[in-house]
């Protein structure tokens, strides 16, 4: 069990749960993009996600993934802060590392706050509420983006998510020991492409319904 409390063990947990959350993001984005295709298709997909026994089971695995990722992240951050009790009077981290890698806690916590809002307004309404008074899942998705502030909060959150993913995706491979002269530079490029795709993909949906 000492593995899970060791520095590397905790990083492996961060990595595996992070990659699992990324797989969820891909499915989530794929379903959401259907809103741009047709109302019926999205409602059908949404119904499938809400009733399929496999997806329903995976919901709990997903929740566990979130809990592990967040709790380990907080524990690691706490330990990392304790490792340097006295700060530098003059420090230039920008000369040796990227902004997204240095702001994982900040982007992570802000994305988490966004997830709370998002779960309240969507998942809660779809599972336990009355769809916020809207007729179908599609109408709920479209309806909430009438509000410019709501749309802005979403787009901002997606930008923060993209920063989190930019470092997180490729870093997850390094943490489990996947580093190879042939593939690492490809993984880093893929990480950037993927984070832009996710950020732009989700934002596009919000903005499309705000302007239409």
């Amino acid at each position, binding site marked *: 069990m000492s593995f899970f409390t060791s*520095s590397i063990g905790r990083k492996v947990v961060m990595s595996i749960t992070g990659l699992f959350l990324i797989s969820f993001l891909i499915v989530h984005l794929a379903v959401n993009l259907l809103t741009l295709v047709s109302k019926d298709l999205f409602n059908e997909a949404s119904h499938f996600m809400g009733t399929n026994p496999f997806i329903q089971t995976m919901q709990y695995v997903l929740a566990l993934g979130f809990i592990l990722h967040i709790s380990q992240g907080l524990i690691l951050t706490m330990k990392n802060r*304790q490792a340097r*009790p006295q700060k*530098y009077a003059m420090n230039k*981290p920008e000369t*040796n590392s990227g902004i997204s890698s*240095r702001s*994982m806690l900040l982007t992570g916590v802000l994305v988490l706050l966004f997830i709370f809002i998002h779960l309240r307004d969507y998942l809660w309404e779809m599972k336990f509420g009355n769809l916020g008074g809207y007729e179908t899942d599609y109408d709920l998705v479209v309806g909430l983006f009438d509000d410019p502030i709501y749309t802005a909060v979403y787009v901002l959150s997606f930008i923060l998510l993209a920063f989190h993913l930019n470092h997180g995706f490729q870093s997850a491979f390094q*943490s489990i*020991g996947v580093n190879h002269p042939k593939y690492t530079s490809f993984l880093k490029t893929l990480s950037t492409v993927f984070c832009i795709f996710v950020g732009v993909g989700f934002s596009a949906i919000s903005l499309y319904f705000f302007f239409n």
Partner: protein
Amino acid sequence: MKLTLKIWRQADPQAKGETVTYPVNDISPDMSFLEMMDVLNEELVNKGEEPVAFDHDCREGICGMCSMYINGEAHGPDRGITTCQLHMRKFKDGDTIYIEPWRAKAFPVIKDLVVDRNSFDRIMEAGGFVSVNTSGNTQDANAIPIPKEDADEAFDAATCIGCGACVASCKNSSAMLFVSAKVSQLALLPQGKVEAKRRVLNMVEQMDKEGFGNCTNTGACEVECPKGISLSNIARMNREYLSASLTAKD
């Protein structure tokens, strides 16, 4: 050159410590940073003040003793060097230079800019060795064939001088680059493979005990390392640790 130095002064490990400002004049751009410190200290001694304590030994970039955090970077603004190889021409006349000790819980300040890096030695004692019988019948080194790539990689890892710039630069004060270099230099070679599992488990355990932080893959260590030790060593240590944890029998 005229410079304003803002130097961390701390009388002993328990003292609170503070940043003290010292103006220095007549600094030649051809001086090394340590020579500039020598000039300052000579002035302080002549004035009857306590000179600034700082680590230094070989002054040719191979011992890893000099350990200053200069203007927000380990070993100053230049790359691939230690502080003794940093020249004053890297600075401009009239510059203000902050000089601080390595900051990490596992590297407590002994005095001024001198830190205690024995935590690195304790990590080495935990597993950074190979057990070889020295009965007098030493085997010919070339009797064990080693692929050129492995030998090169092991040698690259072995160039680590244990200066601690990785820890100082890491936002988490993590020692992963150092420990991974030491794990790699042995794990890559046949003689080191015998004890590879125990080694990585023990060294990582000691690293955690010493109070170093955790790696978040920012890559700052690799950039600031005077010997250019690669992040791929950290990945290798992660692999070694993962497989050793899964398969070690005790």
